[in-house]
């Protein structure tokens, strides 16, 4: 989940257009699959497709927030020089000042944004295979963790990251995936209107504890 890493996709002569083609294909296919596999009780196919798109946008916002959060932490604490990335910083800023500057100037490269969109589409697709809040939480957490870990390992190779940095990113991935699963399940429940139902006990052990949540 390192946004600093996404930058280097540019310098390694990566062709960003290919990534955008993948994004367009994924955006055309994955929400449609989600709509087809969603519960029919949510409405007809068109309505389900719109709901799935809204869920995709919600998931994208969560994933983007995760990248921004990690970028903020990296920038404020571990990144000594905002421009050159080494220890010879001419700026003597506190972590709070650095964080403020980061949030005011946050921007992702075109390729970086494409990678985040693609990642969020895949995570969202996997999450929406769930049929209730419990499954959304579990599938969301698993999908997010797998996606983040794969991206971080690839970026560690491309960026020549140290093992310590990779470990730090894996810890961020785990925490980020847990939080993503929890928040995404509540968000998708709201989008599908499931929360308006009476609250049921969460079916942790796979047993039927009444009607589906």
């Amino acid at each position, binding site marked *: 989940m390192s946004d600093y890493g996404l930058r*280097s996709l540019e*310098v*390694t*002569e990566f062709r960003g257009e290919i990534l955008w083609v993948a994004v367009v294909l994924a955006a055309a296919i994955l929400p449609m699959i989600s709509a087809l596999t969603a519960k029919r009780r949510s409405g007809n196919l068109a309505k389900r497709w719109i709901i799935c798109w809204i869920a995709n946008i919600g998931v994208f916002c969560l994933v983007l927030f995760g990248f921004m959060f990690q970028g903020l932490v990296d920038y404020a604490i571990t990144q000594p020089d905002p421009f*050159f990335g*080494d*220890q*010879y*910083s*001419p700026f*003597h800023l506190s972590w709070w000042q650095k964080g403020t500057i980061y949030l005011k100037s946050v921007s992702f490269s075109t390729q970086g944004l494409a990678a985040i969109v693609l990642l969020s589409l895949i995570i969202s697709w996997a999450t929406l295979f769930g049929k209730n*809040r*419990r499954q*959304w*939480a*579990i599938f969301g*957490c*698993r999908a997010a*963790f*797998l996606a983040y*870990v794969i991206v971080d*390992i690839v970026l*560690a*190779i491309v*960026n*020549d*990251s140290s*093992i310590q940095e*990779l470990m730090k990113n*894996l810890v961020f991935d785990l925490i980020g995936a*847990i939080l993503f*699963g*929890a*928040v995404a*399940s*509540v968000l998708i*429940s*709201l989008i599908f209107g499931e*929360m*308006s139902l009476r*609250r049921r006990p*969460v079916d*942790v*052990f796979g047993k039927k504890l009444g009607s589906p949540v």
Partner: protein
Amino acid sequence: MNVRDCVRNLGDSLRVIGEDFIKGKTFWLPVVLAIVPSVLLATKFRSNMPQLVVAAELVGQQYALKGQGVQDREEFIEGLKRKIESVLPARAALPFATPSASPAREAEDVFSDWDAMPVAVYTVKARVTNLGALSTTISRVSVRLIESVGGRMSWLGYADWPKEEAKLPQGQIAILGNPAGQAIGFKLFGSNLLDFQIVEIIGRGLRQHLAKDTSNRREILASFLRVFALNNSFRQDHLVSIADPANQARVFLVIEVEDVYGRKGLVECPIMDYGAWK
């Protein structure tokens, strides 16, 4: 649906996820087992990638005071010594001067102007080695002139090296710029680098002329520097902080080489440090 319900549902979801780590062994165990070799594989890949190791040696230093031509360091230091010698007695005699007497204005301006020392030229022999198992090409070389006082870095100048696009096969060494030494010119603003020269000249002089067992040489040096920058308290603080050995003040060049993969190699090239006057 209110905020309370949302928070309660969030807590439920967190609990479900927590329990999934225990109940969902069929998923998590293979994932964890796959991550370990993947990390090791990433490390192996990483070691194959081009790794740039830069080495540099400073072979010449030239400076110019305002209105003068560029001089070699020895010549420049001699000239600067004479100027300090002409200014310092007048400032030390200030308490005894009659109100009408004016200090040597011309000499004072040489030291107090913002562009008192506008140019520094360093000649550097530099080379870069590719320690990785893949070939690469150098895309950019840059040089920064940096002062460090008490761990705080300030940039005194920045210069681009003449364009380098050297191919660098694995294990090969590329000479950067002129093999006899590449001259890098810095346009300087402010008197920070000049302050280092002043501290070095006065500090060395005191070390030569004071008895070796003088315990308060540091305080004496600070007093001289305060007298020297009599009319400028900021300058006094800067000079004294450079002179204080606890601050480990130094000036150095940082040569940074970047390849087409965005990998960087850095080297520090010392120019002056507190060892010369402590």
